[in-house]
Structures are given as C-alpha cells and as structure tokens.
C-alpha cells in the first residue's frame, strides 16, 4: 500500500500532506498547518476517494500489523461501493485529521481483535454511501432517476438507455452531493468481494525490500538516536559522563531523557549506539533493586488463598458443593511473563520546533500515540500530528504504551527543527517490554458420585493490566478484563460449561513490572487453567475428555459446535499414529468461538514435538477466509512459542532475557501442520487475530498429559519434567 495522503478538497485543518514515500525521496515535507495541496483528487466521502483514472482509495482507520485488517476493511468498503477490486488501494488518515474532522473515522485503536468487528458497520456504510452518491451524480448528469441506474465494478449503467460511466468521471460531482443517511447494507450472502479468499493488498513491497517500515524512515537532515533507559524497574538515571563519548565518530549530543533515560544522538544509528555502549552511566536503582521472580511468585501464591478477592462469575454455593463432593480435585497452575518480541524493535521519528511537532511511527493506536506526543512536546494538540508507518509486528506491544514516542519527542526537543529517529536495540526492547501479566490459579473441582462436575472454584491470583495502563477502567478496584472468557454472559467471552456451583474470583497482586496487552491477553491463562483442569477432572471422573466436555456444553451450542468440528476432523476416538497423542481445548473470547485438537509426540528425552493442530473458529462472519487461515496459523506459532519456550524472569529488579538467544521462540522446525476449520454461523461479528491462540497451549498440554501421564501445570513446558531416560 501507499501511505500517501493528500488533504482533500474539503481540507484538513490540522492536516499535513507529508507522505512516507515522498519523504524518503527527499521531497518537501509540509508541516502541520501548511497549506493543503491543491492537486489532490476530491473525496466522495471520508472513506472513499476515486481518482480521475478510476483508482479507488479506501481510507483505513485501523492499522495493518500483519493481521490482514487493511485488506479486510478495504474488502468491506469495496463490496458496498461495488468497486473494481483490481483498482482498490488504501491510505491511512492521521489522528490529527481525525480530530479536525470530529473523528469522522471513529476509533483508530487496533487491539482486542476489534479492527474489523468493531468498525465493519460504519466502514460498510461509508462504502455504500459513496456508491449511492456516485450513482446519483451519474443519474443527475443523465437526467434520469437514480433508481434506474446500476453500479457494478466501478461502472454506473443506466439500465434503460445502456449509457455508462466510470466512477472516476463522476467522483467530483458525487463529492458535492448530500451524503445519504443510514444507507442500507448488502446481505453477506450476496457478497462478491467481502467473504472471498482474496490476496492481501500489501504483499508486493514486502518481497523486494521496498516496503517502508517505521524503522526505515528517512527525512532530509535526519539524525539518529540510541537510548538506554534504566534497566531496573522503578530506577532512575543518576548521572552519565558525556565527555567520554562526545568525540566519538558522528556523535552530536548526549541527552538526558526524562528522569530515567539517556540517549546519544549521532549521524547514524550505529554510531549513536556505539557511543551509548561506551557511555559511563550511573543508575539510582530505586526500590526494586532486589526484586526477583521468586519473590513475585510468593506474592502471587499468597493471593491463591487470600480472603479477599474480586468476584467475576458466581452461581450456586461452591463451598457447599465442595464440602459435599464425592471427590475433590485440586491443582495449582502458573503462567509467566511473556515478551511481545515484535521483529521490528520499538522506534519513532520526531521533529519538534517551538511551534509544532510531528511524529512518524509504527503504532496500533495513532490517537494514543498523538496524546503521548502532545504531552511530551508541550504543545497544543492542534500543533502536533502522528503519521503512521508500517508495523513490523504489533501483538499488543504497540498499543500498550507509546513510551518510545514519548522518548523520541523528548530527544527531538533537544534538537529543535532537526528530525531525529530513535531506534531501540533488541536488548533495550527486551528490557522495556510491556509484559504479558504473570498469574497463577488454584483450581478446585467437586465431582459427584457419577463423575459429574457439580462445583468449580477457580481462584486467579496475579497482575492486572488495567491497573497499570488504564486505572480508570477498573470497577471499584476490580479489573473486569482479568475474567476474559470466563464471564456469565455478554458478547465478548462467555464461560461455556454448565456447572451448578461456580466461583471464579481474582486476587489482584501487582508486581512493579509493567504489564501489557499480549496477543490473546488474559484469555491465554484463563483458557489454559480451565481447559487443562477440565481434562484433569475428566480423568478423575474416569471419562473421555470430549464426552466430559460435551455433557457440560448442552446449553452452549456454539462452543460445542467448534469442539465437535475439531474432534471429528482430528479423528478423536480413533487411534492416532503410533506414539502420537491428542489433546483438546475450547474457549470463547473476543466474540469468537474456538477449539483445537493437538497431536504431539513426546520423545524419551522429554522433548515435545507438536505435529498437527486442527483448529476451528466461528467468528460469525468471515471477510477473507484466506487471511483468517493465516491468522490461525500465526496465532499457533505465537501461542506455541509461549508454551514451549516463553518465559521472562526477573533478577535484581531487571529482566534477565536480553535477546533471542536467551528468549527463544519457535522456528520452522517446531511449527506443526495447522488445519483450519472456518465455520461462520452468522448473526454476530467476532475477532480473528487472537482467538485461536487461547486454545494452543491447553490443547498441547492436554496431549502431553495423554502421552506421558504427567500433568504440566507451569508454563513454559520444561523438557526435564518429561524425560524418561
């Protein structure tokens, strides 16, 4: 795609015509408030521009980070627009433009698998309204009723006379018409562009090195910065000895960044980093200098039996059910900190003057990035803007915090008028993540004499993301998001099992490690705890894990349907190949129903080989089945990385893993075959970027238990625990 964005005829008060492509070629870079380019083609409405050559430009508010949203949203708008798909391109408006136009594009946040499901209605209406305006413009020109005209593949035809005209010819006139209110939308069964397995729009540039990522940003006269922020959480910068490095090649300035960091600005990033590596720095280590993973674990363990806890889901009398049970099953599980480890480390380019500030960066939420930039710039919001560049992965990191934007602006303030690109080294990135929160769970199940689950207490203990990132989202101290996938109702994530006596509660324990939204978020551990324990209960009841689940899912037909689908396709109940064992898992989150069956082999040395995953998802509607399949494959790679390897540990207040050599992730040799079942049942819109990740680890852990008789309850899987020789 191009990131090219020209203000329309209607103009953007705070708009800027800066484009990534233009900038790399060293074109004039208009700043905030400069006159809008006059040559820009007129827009039909905020969502659709049709150029005189019939190229259709669809504006995308949410961001592409690999998950295919860009293509999917374009498909939805193009469907209603009746566009010629081969002529469709996309562009990103900026948050400043959004603000100036009273948020005509709505929310920019791209997280929680919401890119499509939350915006599909108004994006489709944007396409539909534009089509109606184009048709009306043609009808006006011909002096015929619009009802006699048809639009198809970017051409409007008057049915009676056979006259026709392309969109590009009437776009300008269409843009002058009143926008229709509440345009009707097509029935998804009539879709021809949406719903189809179309190729992505953004592939070509990723195959020849021409795609510009945020880290590739170039501006005339740009300098580069490398930063070191205090590696100890809660620590501060005490002092540094700039004189030691100021004469090193290329170095321009050594600057303090807020209370906690120091950066070197140089002509190239490598020179900046080399000088930073040589810079003597003294830290004020702060209150957490002795903090360790062991101490954090103790804090969480205490929460497992604490009196006070926030209740997330409750039915019947769980205490009585446990007291009267024929059999009580207990188990304690844990899920460690994880790192996002996006392939592109955090970075941002900023230019600051006393009058204006512009930022170019990879963000999942450009409006939040703008808010951060405004604060750091000390300027009014109208004088600031953020331009979105392509993301080398997001997974939640680039929505959890825009610390890198804040730093880039603070650094740029030291060089007024000069653009500075800040790039974090991989080590800086590992040490300053927004980590998947750490949690534990104490599971207690009550079985009756016939092996039915009559009571379940799920006590969660651990960290709240909202308490750190958005305390205003807490409800009387409770973080509702900690119960993702375990709720009694709602459209997001419902606990599917019928258990007469149920208590799911959370003892919030917040260690001073910054948590963040990590693909799947709290569904990851919630699904793991519940689905592994359900297998433990089935085993204690002497029942087949599939039958045990089925018996409790009678009132949850969508949960049951995805589970049945994977069981059937995987051949549950039929013998697996020699040495291969199967495990099941199901969950609902981000509005979608998902299930998986994993096939694994555990070698005598304890190593685990995940051979095959059968995954089913019911997201309600599917905009591009090919992209959904890609997301399912990718979610398993991400989830299995966590299950097989992922663990961030803390020693002396600092993260111990600094690069991929100590924070391993899965590579091709460990990637299983993934067979996807996409079974949209219609009537609702669920997400697809995350949901299947929930069932990755539990399905594999259940298969490992089936293979070895050993129940692993702590992530990641440790080979030593499974060794038989």
């Amino acid at each position: 795609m191009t990131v090219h964005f020209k203000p329309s005829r209607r103009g953007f008060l705070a708009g800027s015509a800066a484009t990534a492509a233009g900038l790399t070629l060293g074109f004039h870079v208009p700043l905030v408030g400069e006159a809008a380019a006059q040559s820009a083609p007129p827009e039909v409405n905020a969502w659709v521009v049709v150029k005189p050559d019939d190229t259709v430009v669809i504006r995308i508010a949410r961001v592409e980070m690999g998950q295919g949203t860009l293509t999917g949203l374009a498909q939805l708008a193009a469907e209603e627009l009746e566009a010629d798909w081969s002529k469709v391109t996309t562009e990103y408006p900026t948050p400043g433009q959004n603000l100036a136009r009273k948020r005509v594009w709505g929310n920019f946040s791209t997280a929680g698998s919401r890119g499509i499901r939350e915006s599909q209605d108004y994006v489709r209406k944007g396409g539909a309204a534009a089509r109606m305006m184009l048709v009306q413009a043609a009808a006006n020109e011909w002096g015929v009723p619009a009802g006699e005209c048809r639009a198809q593949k970017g051409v409007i035809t008057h049915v009676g006379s056979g006259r026709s005209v392309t969109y590009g010819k009437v776009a300008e006139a269409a843009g002058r018409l009143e926008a229709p209110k509440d345009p009707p939308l097509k029935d998804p069964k009539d879709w021809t562009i949406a719903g189809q397995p179309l190729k992505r729009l953004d592939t070509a540039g990723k195959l020849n090195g021409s795609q510009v990522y945020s880290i590739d940003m170039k501006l005339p006269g740009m300098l580069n910065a490398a930063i070191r922020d205090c590696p100890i959480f809660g620590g501060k910068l005490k002092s540094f000895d700039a004189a030691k490095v100021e004469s090193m090649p290329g170095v321009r300035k050594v600057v303090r960044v807020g209370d906690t960091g120091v950066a070197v600005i140089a002509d190239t990033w490598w020179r900046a980093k080399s000088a930073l590596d040589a810079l003597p720095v003294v830290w004020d280590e702060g209150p957490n200098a002795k903090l360790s993973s062991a101490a954090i674990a103790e804090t969480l363990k205490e929460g497992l039996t604490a009196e006070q806890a926030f209740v997330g889901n409750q039915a019947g009398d769980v205490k009585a059910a446990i007291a009267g049970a024929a059999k009580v099953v207990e188990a304690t599980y844990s899920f460690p900190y994880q790192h996002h480890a996006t392939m592109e480390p955090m970075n941002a380019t900023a230019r600051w003057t006393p009058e204006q500030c512009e930022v170019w960066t990879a963000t999942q939420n450009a409006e939040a990035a703008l808010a951060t930039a405004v604060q750091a710039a000390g300027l009014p919001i109208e004088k600031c803007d953020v331009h979105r560049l392509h993301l080398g992965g997001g997974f939640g990191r680039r929505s959890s915090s825009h610390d890198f934007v804040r730093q880039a602006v603070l650094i740029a303030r030291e060089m007024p008028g000069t653009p500075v690109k800040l790039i974090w080294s991989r080590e800086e990135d590992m040490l300053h993540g927004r980590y998947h929160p750490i949690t534990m769970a104490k599971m207690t199940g009550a079985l009756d004499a016939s092996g039915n689950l009559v009571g379940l207490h799920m006590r969660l203990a651990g960290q709240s993301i909202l308490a750190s990132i958005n305390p205003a989202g807490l409800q009387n101290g409770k973080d509702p998001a900690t119960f993702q996938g375990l709720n009694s109702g709602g459209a997001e994530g419902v606990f599917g099992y019928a258990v007469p006596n149920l208590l799911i509660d959370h003892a919030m324990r917040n260690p001073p490690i910054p948590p963040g939204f990590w693909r799947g978020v709290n569904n990851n551990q919630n699904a793991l705890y519940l689905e592994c324990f359900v297998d433990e209960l089935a085993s204690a009841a002497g029942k087949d894990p599939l039958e045990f689940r089925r018996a409790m899912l009678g009132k949850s037909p969508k949960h049951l349907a995805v589970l049945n689908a994977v069981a059937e396709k995987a051949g549950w109940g039929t013998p697996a190949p020699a040495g291969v064992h199967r495990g099941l898992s199901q969950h609902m989150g981000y509005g979608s129903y998902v299930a998986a069956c994993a096939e694994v082999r555990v070698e005598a040395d304890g190593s685990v080989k995940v051979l095959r995953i059968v995954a089913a998802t019911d997201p309600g509607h599917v905009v591009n089945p090919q992209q959904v399949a890609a997301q399912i494959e990718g979610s398993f790679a991400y989830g299995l990385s966590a299950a097989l390897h992922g663990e961030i540990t803390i020693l002396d207040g600092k993260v111990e893993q600094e690069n991929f050599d100590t924070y391993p992730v899965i590579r091709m040799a460990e990637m299983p075959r993934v067979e996807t079942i996409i079974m949209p049942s219609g009537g609702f819109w669920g997400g697809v970027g995350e949901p299947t990740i929930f069932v990755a680890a539990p399905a594999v852990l259940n298969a490992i238990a089936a293979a070895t008789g050993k129940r692993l309850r702590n992530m990641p899987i440790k080979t030593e625990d499974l060794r038989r020789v």
Partner: protein
Amino acid sequence: MLRLTVNGTVREVDAEPDTPLLWVLREQVGLTGTKYGCGVAACGACTVHIDGVATRSCSLPVSEVKAGQNILTIEGLSPDSSHALQKAWLDHDVPQCGYCQSGQLMAAAALLAANPKPTDDEIAAEMTNICRCGTYNRVRAAIRQAAGVTG
C-alpha cells in the same frame, strides 16, 4: 572510504571498520530492505548473500567483506520481483507484517541455489529465520513450489 560491491554496483562508504555490514547497507548505502532484528545473528532478518552465501549481516564487520566480493541484498534479488521465490511468495500470500521476509527470501534463495530440490527436513534445517507472525508453513510451501517439489 571503503569500497563495497552491492547488487553489482561499486559503492564508496564512510564507516568505521567494525561497523556491521547491516548498518552500512541501511545507513550508508541507503538500502533498508535488509532488516535489523537482533544484532546477534539469532534471527536472520538481516540475511544477505556474500558471493552467494547466506550471511547474517548484523554480525559481520564491514571490514571483513573482501574487495570484489559481491553483496546481494533483497533489493537485488531480481530486478522486478520475478525470482521464482518472490513469485511463489506472492502465490502463497506468505508475508504477514513482512518484516522478516527479506531475510526469509534471501535465506531461501541461498538454500535453493545450493540444494535445488530440498526435502522438508532440509528446508527446516536451513530456514532458521524467526518469524513472529508465524508464516513458517507458508514459507515452506512457497519454497517447495519454487523448487518444484511437493510435500
């Protein structure tokens, strides 16, 4: 001034001898298709060919590139994205975020040049590049297609 041959063109660059080739390519030569992922030869994002051999350029000091050796980057893999692997990548819609894909393609190109009909195990043994988006199965399928082998 150092002289480097990049994609067949001789370039003069001003860099300290211990600068990793990756940063010389990105910052002095101006070719940003080669990516930085780890800086410690662990991820493969920075893979280029040096006289046809896949090399992790983040860990190679530029002074170790010998005069006359040809450095091939993703920008030079083909003039018009017509390399069999680039076409196969397009057919399989391989990239997600795409950040690792320059390195994946360069590693795959070196693999096929040395072993035109690799088995799946040989592909997995050579293709150790990290992709956090998880495109591994499509990478393998595209390599198979370009090699004319079926899984």
